[in-house]
């Protein structure tokens, strides 16, 4: 078998971060090649380079495709050469029909007038190829996610595809839709289409892939081939195995009584009312304890936290939340805050901060009553409060009158923490508290978390970074597809065990 694609020594840096460091990827003609790695390992960045999102000049290294050196200018350029990527978030227009979507930007037309007859006929042929039984005129918005995925593949096939890239194609699919999609990939392989699949699910990697490249922290760790036989254990080890010394502050904790007690928590999707997002979850957190929730993106961690925090996500929410043994009303955000729960959101720029406003403005936002009397804000008191938290959390700025948009990621995160600490919570739920901030700032955030636990607060920490959970938590719940699939004590937890719980099907 000849080599279709070779990416050599690809290095890509973003300001302050080296996302890819001499990555090598070799894909043989006619095979299905899996690229696996943790969230943030650099898989998506690599695929963005391959599909022209980052054009030549924005990265180092070279790409040889079909015997030629590639210098891609943009996405269009890569598509013209037959490299087609299907993203996790589908790029379809729901208001348009299947046929219109398939030929969007590539319309069957003469003199700019669309030939509908030809469009629909070609669409039927493509739909037959991917095994989708729908009329070409059906609106894409009216079919399910699984079928939409097939439309995306049909769209790719309409463009004379040589290399098909699927970015976590089954992440949003149900079991049997996933299986269908994987079978389609095998069928396309039989027809001579080469594919790259990016996936976390090792079961499906084993099912379809001929070879596997493991990426970790922006470098290629290993390349395994189906012929020589690969075990899931090997892949898991390669995915997570990294040095863990001294990245977390040394700390001893002595948890007290159960503080937060959530039982039989069920949540349904706010729009697709039949989809259950959180399935009967129960968990506890003790005073002075840091509890982790591990799981991949999309496993429902954020949805769990947000539904507990004032029903900010989901419909038909049921279950009970107790604090110190007493049931509390968490049906709205202000009630949850009053009860003593704080939720430090995942994406601080979207959910956490009013970016155009100052540190002072943001610090007091969740507890304006704490700096006002009779509805009038006491500016000087507010300034002192903001100053106090700025000093306590070591936010590095000249004053509390800086707009938060100008702060670094780590400092922004500290301001969000300050906002929640000023509500004087008993329970803090931290969602990806260190995402996108540098190692030094992470260490400081870990220290803050430890101090909070020492003050007798219960900390629930959601993170995609397993080392962080292992380094910080007393106990870790493992979550997958809306359920808790395991619970590990700090002593018995390691990355292999967590990953094994997640990938088991």
């Amino acid at each position, binding site marked *: 078998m000849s080599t279709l694609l070779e990416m050599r020594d690809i290095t890509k840096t973003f300001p302050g971060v080296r996302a890819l460091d001499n990555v090598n990827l070799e894909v043989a003609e006619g095979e299905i090649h899996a690229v696996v790695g943790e969230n943030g390992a650099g898989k998506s960045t690599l695929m963005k380079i391959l599909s022209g999102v980052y054009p030549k000049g924005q990265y180092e290294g070279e790409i040889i495709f079909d015997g030629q050196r590639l210098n891609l200018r943009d996405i269009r350029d890569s598509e013209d050469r037959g490299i087609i990527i299907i993203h996790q978030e589908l790029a379809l227009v729901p208001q348009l029909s299947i046929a219109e979507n398939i030929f969007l930007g590539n319309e069957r037309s003469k003199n700019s007038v669309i030939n509908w007859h030809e469009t629909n006929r070609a669409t039927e042929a493509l739909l037959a190829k991917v095994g989708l039984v729908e009329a070409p005129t059906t609106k894409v918005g009216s079919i399910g996610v699984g079928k939409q995925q097939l439309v995306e593949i049909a769209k790719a096939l309409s463009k004379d595809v040589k290399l098909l890239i699927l970015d976590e194609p089954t992440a949003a699919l149900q079991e049997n839709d996933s299986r269908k999609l994987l079978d389609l990939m095998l069928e396309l392989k039989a027809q001579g289409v080469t594919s790259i699949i990016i996936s976390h699910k090792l079961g499906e990697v084993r099912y379809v892939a001929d070879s596997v490249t493991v990426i970790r922290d922006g470098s290629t760790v290993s390349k395994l081939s189906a012929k020589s036989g690969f075990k899931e254990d090997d892949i898991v080890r390669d995915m997570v195995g990294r040095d863990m010394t001294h990245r977390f502050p040394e700390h001893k904790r002595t948890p007290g009584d159960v503080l937060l007690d959530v039982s039989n928590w069920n949540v349904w999707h706010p729009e697709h009312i039949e989809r259950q997002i959180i399935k009967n979850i129960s968990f506890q957190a003790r005073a002075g304890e840091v509890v982790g929730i591990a799981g991949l993106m999309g496993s429902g961690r954020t949805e769990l936290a947000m539904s507990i*925090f*004032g029903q*900010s996500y989901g419909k038909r929410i049921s279950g009970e939340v107790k604090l110190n043994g007493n049931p509390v009303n968490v049906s*709205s*955000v*202000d009630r*949850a*805050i009053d009860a003593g729960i704080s*939720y430090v*959101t995942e994406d601080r720029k*979207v*959910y*956490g*901060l*009013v*970016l*155009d*406003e100052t540190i002072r*403005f943001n610090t007091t*936002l*969740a507890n*304006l*009553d704490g700096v*006002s009397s009779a*509805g*009038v*804000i006491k*500016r*000087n008191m507010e*300034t*002192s409060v903001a100053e106090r938290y700025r000093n306590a959390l070591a936010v590095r*700025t*000249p*004053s509390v*009158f800086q707009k938060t948009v100008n702060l670094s990621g780590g400092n922004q995160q500290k301001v969000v923490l300050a*906002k929640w600490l000023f509500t004087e919570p008993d329970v803090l739920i931290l969602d990806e508290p260190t995402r996108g901030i540098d190692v030094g700032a992470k260490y400081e955030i870990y220290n803050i978390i430890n101090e909070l636990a020492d003050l007798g607060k219960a900390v629930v920490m959601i993170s995609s970074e397993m080392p962080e959970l292992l380094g910080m938590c007393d106990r870790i719940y493992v979550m997958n597809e809306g359920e808790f699939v395991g619970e590990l004590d700090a002593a018995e937890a390691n990355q292999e065990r967590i990953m094994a719980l997640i990938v088991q099907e």
Partner: protein
Amino acid sequence: MVDSETQELSSTKPAVQTKSIGHYLSANLRQYGLLLALIVVMVFFQIVTDGTLLRAVNVTNLLLQNSYIIIMALGMLIVIVAGHIDLSVGSVMGFIGALAAVMIVNFDMNIYLAGAICLATGALIGAAQGYWVAYWNIPSFIVTLAGMLVFRGLSLLLLEGQSVGPFPREFQIIATGFLGDFFPKTIGEGLASIFAVRQINTVAFLSGIAAAILLVWMGMRKRAANIAYGVEEEPAVIFYVRTFIVAAALIFVMYKLSQFRGLPNVLLTMGFLAVIYGFVTENTVIGRRIYALGGNQKAAQLSGIKTKRLTFLAFTNMGFLAAAAGMVFAARLNTATPKAGFALELDVIAAVFIGGASMSGGVGTIVGAVIGAFLMGVLNNGMSIMGIGIDYQQMIKGLVLLAAVVFDVYNKNKEA
């Protein structure tokens, strides 16, 4: 960061002061630019109209003419800061004027009762529109566009296509009355002889001086507190120059008013409302929450702010103020016409945007909106005195609006 350090130094080392003042000015160009633009425009028209613009009677007129726009701009500022827009205010204003006319002129209703009913109806209209925007997530553009048509139609229906008037004297004085001079006549005459003018209304004259003193005192107090708390403050020179200009302008305007008929009732209403709304937006919890809502709705919601209720209240308040403006307008014209308030919403919205508010919400001040309204008012007035046709007036106003917003966007891009 470097900026603020040089600024701190500047208070002790005059050597670097000029540079840091330049920095400060360019960093706050928008704020000062607006005030400067108003002054430039006034000076320009003062010259080209041979001094007509700032004659006592014209200054009085200028205030009366723009009072209803300013009253509505206060509410519009809040709606826009909250991230919405209200296109219905012109129609609602006209409708309330019509309602007042029908109740007072046709049915001889007591004017206080009628006034209360008008204000309540305005609030109710605002609430009805706010309900769809806040609780049904219908875009405010659509809801208030519908409201604009509905209330335009209702005015026609109510007035049966006719103008209704005149209003009784007690109602007219809302808009055309003046605060009487309760000081002994001799003081006014004495002042008049000192300044060598025909007459002086002592109340207006002294109010101007009192307001200027109050303004300076409050400015100094705030500045002192800010310095004590280490707040980045504007350089001393700029503070004193700015405060001096504003105080002088205040005294000047009042002095002009005192030479005509004194303080218009409308100015008192308007001034009172502007101070209240300025205070609410800047210093209260609810004001703060509106800025948070407009700045980042998701973050506001997740901080425990009841964003829907706030949106609802913003529109209710807008309806209330549109009703107040409607009564002022009707009283001023002394009649309610089906055309009243036609396209006025655009002047109100333009004033708010010229005053520095952002289309995407979260940014804008009451002071800015008021200055923006005056800027438009002076343009209107000055061009009318010059005899420039309505055609050119419209074009010039349009270009001023565009220029103001382009300036904002340019500044923001430069910042980033």
